[in-house]
């Protein structure tokens, strides 16, 4: 409370008693569950403060409140003596609180550099200030990454090409670049290899030496011991005590976390001799009753090794696998606990072809007791359980298949100590009953506690085997870096991990990054085919005609693109009725009333389109409608209005509109219309907007937590798309000199626009692509139809050919992207 000025204290060490962040009586409920009841915490300048607690104790909720993601129901937060209530991540970061979340967050498609500075800029305005011009950004990015990784990865490579550990470091570096006074690390060390983690600790110490503070959340005792000055323990949403480093021994902490509930350590020794070999090969002879550990620095091949083991087993041997990423690879979020449990063994519950709930329940109850799964009803959603209990359900599912071999991929990652010990006890019991277990773990303690043998991985293969007698912390860590000269290699560990990443084929990378190249090649080939078939195609008057006819589909395709780029299921299927509505506005309301000046009509058309696009954007991003639903309704509404004002085609034109349909000053009008959005988009590309939109499309959660105003960026995307649709309305009027609102006329354009976007190489999942590709996609479709027309093939066949081309093109684009991704993932 002593600092009245929020400026950084000058003397580093003297600030150790400065209160930087005070949390007082924070509470937060989600529906009926009280995630946080009464949490109080004091973070002093110059300290690393650890936060511990079992899963479900409210740590993550507290972190999300501090990060601005959630708002507390009651309680107050003070930052350097001033009350704060961040309304979003951007505000929290702006006030000096930067958070690294548990899940590794990056936008895989974008460069390391863009990832690092994501969220710094405004929506269209680039952030300015000291250290923020492009050269300085690059230099500072390199510096921070080097501090964390030992070396600096290629800043222009897509972030998806980095290893998991490097991506985690990237997320941490992003927070560090925001110059936080308070850095929150929520289990941010779980994916880091040991060397990177040690460098992170050094960076944390440097931050505290400058008077900042670190809130450090981890389940790993050794890390807490190593780095924390004080520890606060949460239990059931309440802060139950703060200990200094010398008070914080494991027994005390566990006592606080569990509320005195003793953790039963099962007897480690009682284990029969290993039985027969059940799985052999690749440096492993797995015997019944054994628990084998897979260890190593992150990304040394142990993961692939474990996944491949299942295939080595004899056909008769049942193998069960428990995946690493619980949320993505193990659970079925909307389904019930019971349905999650029975997923692998559905047929066991089938009675006469029908699933018997009673039978499934009976089977589950047996495991529920055995694994001490704590839950209300087995019909509740799996997501109502804590992480530890979810993992127990997943393990129960694996066991329900009665396997002989159990493969576990870091099963205790991110689960609390109580649940961990339950899992250890279970695995010991299983091994004692003759099951063979292989378990990958990133925790040294786990290997020491549980394993009969440990395989240590280096550079993609098992490099050493330690049996129970030789298993010790130092032996294990020594093997991580190779037996020879461990000190020396430690600093090189991270580069070794990355050297395994072969730079992907340059051509594949080019195709994957410049998504418009493929449609461009296709368009050129089709152009040549058209010319060969029909020489007149090259003549000037046919160029004018071509551009006039291409203008509307080309603009419609471009208009559909920004919504798709923004991701999150973004799509605008109201583009076609919108441009038809605009043409009705132009014909009926403007020309029909004698308003014919281009200076009025064109802006009016674009503004009308942009306004409708903005309504779509607001409905979707602020009203939380699914994009398909909202734009489907807008589709109905616009079609209705268009039909109401123009039940039959309304004709009319004016001087400039007629020339826009042919040439303006010698330039084809269609070309001008098509160039406008491309130019605007290129200009927008010089602002942060396009990059931010693609980042939102690539990973909305990353963008949101990095401080991007996701709804605003996406809404702007829809608005720009609407504006382009307005221009398409001008184009169709210039081409046809009439407005036609018949649904038979409009519907094909809806489908054509989306097909052109996909042909143009834009990923419909968002994040990758651009306007140029969509225009080229529309050109490809146009050229196919033209070519088939010249060959006198019926329009029905040309539809079939166009459908086939679409599939082939999408297939090709997906293959190059997948090729690229696969190479990148290695």
């Amino acid at each position, binding site marked *: 409370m002593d600092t009245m000025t929020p400026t950084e204290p000058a003397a580093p060490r003297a600030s150790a008693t400065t209160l930087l962040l005070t949390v007082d009586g924070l509470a937060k409920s989600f529906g009926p569950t009280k995630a946080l009841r009464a949490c109080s915490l004091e973070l002093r300048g110059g300290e690393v403060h650890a936060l511990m607690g079992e899963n479900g104790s409210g740590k993550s909720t507290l972190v999300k409140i501090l990060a601005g993601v959630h708002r507390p129901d009651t309680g107050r937060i003070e930052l350097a003596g001033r009350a704060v209530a961040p309304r979003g991540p951007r505000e929290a970061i702006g006030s000096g609180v930067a958070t690294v979340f548990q899940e590794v967050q990056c936008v895989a498609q974008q460069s390391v550099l863009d990832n690092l500075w994501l969220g710094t800029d405004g929506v269209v305005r680039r952030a300015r200030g000291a250290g923020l011009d492009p050269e300085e950004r690059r230099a500072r990015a390199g510096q921070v990454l080097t501090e964390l990784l030992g070396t600096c990865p290629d800043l222009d490579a897509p972030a998806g090409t980095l290893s998991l550990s490097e991506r985690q470091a990237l997320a941490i570096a992003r927070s560090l670049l925001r110059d936080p006074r308070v850095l929150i690390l929520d289990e941010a060390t779980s994916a880091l290899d040991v060397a990177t983690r040690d460098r992170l600790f050094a960076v944390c110490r440097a931050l505290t030496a400058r008077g900042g503070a670190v809130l450090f959340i981890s389940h790993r005792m050794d890390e807490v011991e190593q780095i924390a000055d004080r520890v606060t323990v949460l239990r059931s949403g309440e802060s139950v005590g703060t200990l200094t480093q010398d008070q914080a021994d494991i027994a005390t902490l566990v006592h606080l976390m569990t509320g005195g509930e003793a953790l039963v350590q099962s007897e480690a020794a009682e284990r029969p001799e290993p039985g027969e070999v059940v799985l052999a090969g690749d440096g492993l002879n797995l015997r019944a009753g054994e628990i084998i550990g897979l260890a190593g620095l992150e990304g040394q091949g142990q993961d692939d090794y474990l996944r491949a083991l299942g295939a080595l087993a004899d056909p008769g041997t049942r193998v069960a696998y428990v995946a690493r990423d619980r949320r993505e690879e193990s659970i079925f979020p909307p389904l019930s606990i019971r349905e999650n449990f029975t997923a692998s063994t559905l047929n066991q519950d089938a009675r006469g072809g029908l699933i018997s709930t009673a039978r499934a329940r009976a089977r589950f109850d047996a495991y529920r007791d055995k694994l001490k799964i704590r839950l209300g009803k087995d019909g509740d959603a799996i997501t109502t359980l804590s992480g530890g209990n979810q993992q127990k359900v997943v393990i129960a599912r694996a066991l329900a298949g009665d396997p002989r071999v159990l493969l576990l991929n870091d099963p205790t990652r991110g689960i609390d100590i109580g649940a961990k010990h339950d899992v250890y006890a279970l695995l010991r019991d299983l091994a004692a009953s003759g099951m063979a277990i292989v378990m990958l773990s990133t925790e040294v303690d786990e290997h020491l506690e549980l394993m009969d043998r440990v395989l240590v991985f280096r550079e993609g293969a098992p490099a050493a085997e330690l049996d129970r007698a030789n298993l010790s912390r130092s032996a294990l860590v020594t093997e991580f870096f190779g037996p020879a000269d461990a000190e020396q290699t430690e600093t090189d560990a991270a580069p070794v991990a990355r050297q395994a990443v072969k730079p992907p084929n340059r051509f594949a990378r080019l195709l994957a990054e410049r998504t418009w190249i493929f449609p461009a090649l296709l368009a050129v080939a089709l152009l040549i085919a058209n010319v060969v078939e029909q020489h007149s195609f090259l003549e000037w008057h046919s160029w004018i005609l071509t551009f006039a006819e291409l203008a509307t589909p080309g603009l419609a395709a471009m208009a559909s693109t920004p919504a798709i780029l923004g991701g999150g299921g973004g799509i605008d299927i109201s583009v076609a009725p919108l441009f038809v509505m605009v043409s009705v506005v132009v014909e009926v309301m403007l020309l029909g009333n004698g308003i014919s000046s281009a200076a009025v009509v064109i802006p009016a058309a674009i503004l009308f389109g942009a306004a409708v696009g903005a309504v779509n954007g607001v409905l979707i991003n602020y009203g939380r409608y699914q994009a398909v639903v909202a734009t489907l309704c807008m589709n109905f509404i616009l079609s209705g209005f268009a039909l109401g004002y123009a039940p039959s085609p309304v004709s009319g034109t004016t001087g400039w509109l007629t020339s826009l349909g042919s040439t303006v000053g010698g330039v084809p009008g269609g070309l001008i219309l098509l160039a406008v959005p491309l130019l605007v988009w290129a200009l927008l590309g010089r602002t942060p907007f396009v990059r931010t939109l693609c980042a939102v499309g690539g990973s909305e959660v990353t963008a949101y937590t990095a401080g991007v105003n996701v709804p605003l960026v996406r809404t702007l995307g829809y608005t720009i798309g609407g504006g382009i649709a307005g221009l398409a309305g001008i184009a169709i009027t210039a081409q046809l000199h009439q407005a036609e609102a018949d649904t038979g006329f409009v519907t094909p354009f809806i489908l054509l626009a989306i097909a052109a976007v996909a042909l143009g190489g834009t990923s*419909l999942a968002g994040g990758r692509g651009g306007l140029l590709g969509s225009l080229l996609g529309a050109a490809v479709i146009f050229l196919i139809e033209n070519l088939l027309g010249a060959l006198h093939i019926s329009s029905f066949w040309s539809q079939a050919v166009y459908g086939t081309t679409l599939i082939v093109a*999408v297939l090709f684009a997906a293959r190059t992207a997948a090729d690229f991704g696969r190479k990148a993932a290695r």
Partner: protein
Amino acid sequence: MNQLRKLSGLQKRYPLLQIVVLVLLVLYVGQQDGDFTWNDLFAPILLQASFLGIAAAGQTLVILVGGLDFSIAAYLVAGNLLVTHLVGNEHWNFGAAALLVFAICVVGGGFSGWICHRFKLEPLVITLAMSSIVVGALVGTNTSLLNGSGPGWLQSFTSQTSDTFGLPIAPIIAFWIVLAIAVTVVLLRTPVGRKLYLAGAGPKSADLAGIRTRRVWVAAYAASALLAGLAGVLLAGFSTGGDTNVGNSYLFPGLAAVIVGGTMMGGRGDYLRTCLGALIVTTLNFVISVNNLNASAASIVFGVLILLVVALYGRERRLRDRV
């Protein structure tokens, strides 16, 4: 407050709001007509909803598994054209013609599902492309497809004046009810149905749990095409002569029925909800017609009403809850 929570919990399990909306709409139509008799109010709604409900059944399956099927209209047209042509012009046996339709649907739909899953392609684009291919190739080979006619017995099957074993409902309605029960039992009570939910709720998890998700995708898309083709065959009795546009009145309204019913991408929902959705969408059309609104006003009212209905229960989670 507590009761409100209970209600929202119940709404997650049962389509309560959908039922309320449907009842209110039906009451409104009856009120406006001043006629609550079976033949003038309920039977016509059920009859029209049955086609939509059958056509939207496949869309429900595909959306549950996490996809989207834009080829419904094409298979519907294919079924309609082939049956009217082969039976009307070529004098084929109806069963043989129907079998040919179903074979085409299963192969085409199955291919869509396979290619989407195998190469991780966007279902929207693939099904769009497949519909161009199916309709284009079909009509391209034989333009006389466009002037056939359906078998006579099919007309009484789908006529409101027919009854079913003495019950005062058209056979098509009875057929729809049986189909709804069958699809629901398969979805909720059999391993095959459960696999559909699992593959939709967690694609990677399902793979790792030993479920062959590619087969599930192939089956879902094949079933979707099959059900659309079935709707097209049944429509052959309703409409005389083939029409390549007949499908368009079922694609977007069918999608609307699924959405209004409350089935969402990735394993949430079931077919009974879609049936409710089909009834709501159909009744909305009646609301529009009792108010003597023309097609344009109808379209606007339709769009606005779906927005309102979906606002009550079908919205996405907040961004901050996805962190």
